[in-house]
């Protein structure tokens, strides 16, 4: 009842939506750096939104499924391949025992999520399955996956569902909205102007703790250090050197640098997808605007949830095929790359599709 790790990739960890309620004890939230992608992957599979999945970083793992189960791959496009053939993203996919999932060349974003119908079964630590590497907490023994690991899953049935295109997030280079503060007065007017009008490049030493940026120095009005105070995910610290650090989910719970602003919640998932070398820009926004954008996104998720409950995303096709003598009800399922399951009047047939990428793409087959 598990998934075997044939190759762990660069950094693959178990993550859910994070560890709430323990920051006062110095425990960071951790969790998916792009929580929206994890939530959607879970919804497609009929899971609770906060079910634990795998966070795959840039160079993905090779996994072998030891039992039949449904998965979804969401978030970054890291060149996922299902038995060697390109795997569709943002879609529930039925894995068969023995199937392999691997990753190739990253195309957009940094973090992909592999969710499993029923979820990854690791023991929660402090009410969460998220891995916090620095304290060796949660996930699989508090560490990243390694070769030979067997990840237990609680396989549950699911259905073919594909996310409508309008819900698929764009990991583009539009400005990140920030609510200025809470230490605006620690910066000169010119410093704030520099921050809002310059492009900052993501440094290679960025990680789940924070996105370190390189670019025009932001001038402080006085000291950069403050008496240590609580921080939050998205907070933008500016140490004395003047180059900002945007805090991500593995951030410390408190910090002693002045903060010029905080990336709004609606833009945080995209922040979890920035790559070293990317150019980031920031735009000021009011608190009311930040809350409006969050409400809009959550209204979208609610709509999606309803649509899923009503079967609106199901993408299995039932066709009627007529011959001169009678009409058959034919259900066609994508079973795996190169394999299609056809059910004719209730009897199932497995059909191998040869050279399917050139001649008979599964999609064309589904549309009859």
């Amino acid at each position, binding site marked *: 009842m598990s998934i075997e790790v044939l190759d762990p990739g660069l950094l693959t960890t178990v993550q859910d939506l994070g560890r*709430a*309620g*323990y*920051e*006062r*004890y*110095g*425990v*960071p939230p951790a969790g998916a750096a792009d929580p929206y992608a994890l939530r959607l992957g879970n919804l497609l599979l009929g899971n609770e939104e906060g079910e634990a999945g795998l966070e795959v970083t840039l160079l993905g793992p090779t996994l072998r499924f030891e039992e039949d189960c449904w998965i979804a791959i969401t978030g970054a496009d890291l060149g996922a391949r299902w038995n060697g053939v390109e795997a569709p993203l943002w879609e529930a996919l039925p894995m068969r025992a023995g199937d392999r999932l691997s990753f190739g060349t990253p195309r957009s974003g940094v973090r992909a999520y592999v969710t499993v119908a029923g979820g990854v079964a690791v023991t929660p*630590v*402090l009410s969460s399955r998220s891995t916090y590497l*620095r*304290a*060796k*907490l949660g996930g699989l023994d508090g560490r990243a996956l390694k070769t030979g690991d067997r990840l237990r899953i609680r396989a549950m049935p699911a259905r073919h569902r594909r996310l409508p295109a309008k819900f698929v997030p764009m990991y583009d280079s539009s400005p990140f909205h920030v*609510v200025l*503060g*809470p230490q605006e007065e620690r910066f000169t007017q010119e410093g704030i102007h520099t921050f809002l009008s310059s492009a900052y490049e993501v440094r290679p030493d960025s990680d789940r703790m924070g996105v370190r940026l390189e670019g025009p120095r932001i001038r402080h009005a006085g000291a950069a250090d403050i*008496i*240590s*105070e*609580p*921080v*939050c995910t*998205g*907070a933008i610290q500016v140490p004395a050197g003047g180059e900002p650090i945007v805090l991500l989910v593995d951030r*410390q*719970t*408190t910090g002693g640098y002045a*903060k010029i602003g*905080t*990336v*709004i*919640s609606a833009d945080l998932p995209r922040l979890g997808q920035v790559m070293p070398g990317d150019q980031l820009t920031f735009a000021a926004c009011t*608190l009311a605007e*930040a*809350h409006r954008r*969050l*409400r809009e996104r*959550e209204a979208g998720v609610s709509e999606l949830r309803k649509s899923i409950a009503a079967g609106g995303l199901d993408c299995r096709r039932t066709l009627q095929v007529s011959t001169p003598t009678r009409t058959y009800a034919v259900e066609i399922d994508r079973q795996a790359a190169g394999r299609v399951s056809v059910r004719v009047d209730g009897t199932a047939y497995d059909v191998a599709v040869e050279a399917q990428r050139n001649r008979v793409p599964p999609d064309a087959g589904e549309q009859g």
Partner: protein
Amino acid sequence: MKGLDAVDFRFRPMGDRSLLIEFDELISPEIHRQVRALSQAIEEAEIPGAREVIPAYRSMAVHYDPQETSIEDLCLRIRELESRPDAHDVSGSRRVRVPVCYGGDLGPDLPYVAQHNGLTEDDVVAIHSGATYLVYMIGFLPGFPYLGGMSGKIATPRLPEPRTRTPAGSVGVAGTQTGVYPIESPGGWRIIGRTPIELFVAHEVPPARLWMGDSVEFVPISRAEFDGIRARAETGEPQWAQMGGP
């Protein structure tokens, strides 16, 4: 304990899900008591939409769900707590004794701290273990206590190059601060000893042994005692018995 109604604090939004509450900009036992009292009152009030309260030296954050409460309502509810007579007292603080084996390979920077301050190693140990420290806040690492009350006589600057690995339990000095690393971590503090006690235990609630407001004393122990406590810890014997409380 002074009532909250006599206390001056102000609100500032930190992003769109956190409210920062600031008191006077200084580190003092009095400000600390005000922060403790208000954070405790907010927790006990169970304000709708308030998710988590994180107290610090002279401020605290309240993480909230903007789908459940507006920031205006949240601020109003917190201001209302000032007029509640039952919310003003902070619960009693604990006295916690933390055994420390000073020097040797467990405290590699003890000679430097002594030399830097023109003292003997024994002097440093006597000064460090002779004081009572107030836990101002927990932060930086899981369970890491920010302690106040160290003597300036043993103040020592941080390492010019932080160590890539400081073992769990390491007791360090940085400037005029002292603290204990609850977990292994990179760090630039001068390490003068190590406690065999685990300050962060993930499978317990609360996971941090020390809490803001606790009074901490460091008790010198020998290497044999250190090894003995560690060996008994391996067998799962509760460590609090060895700390005299709580």
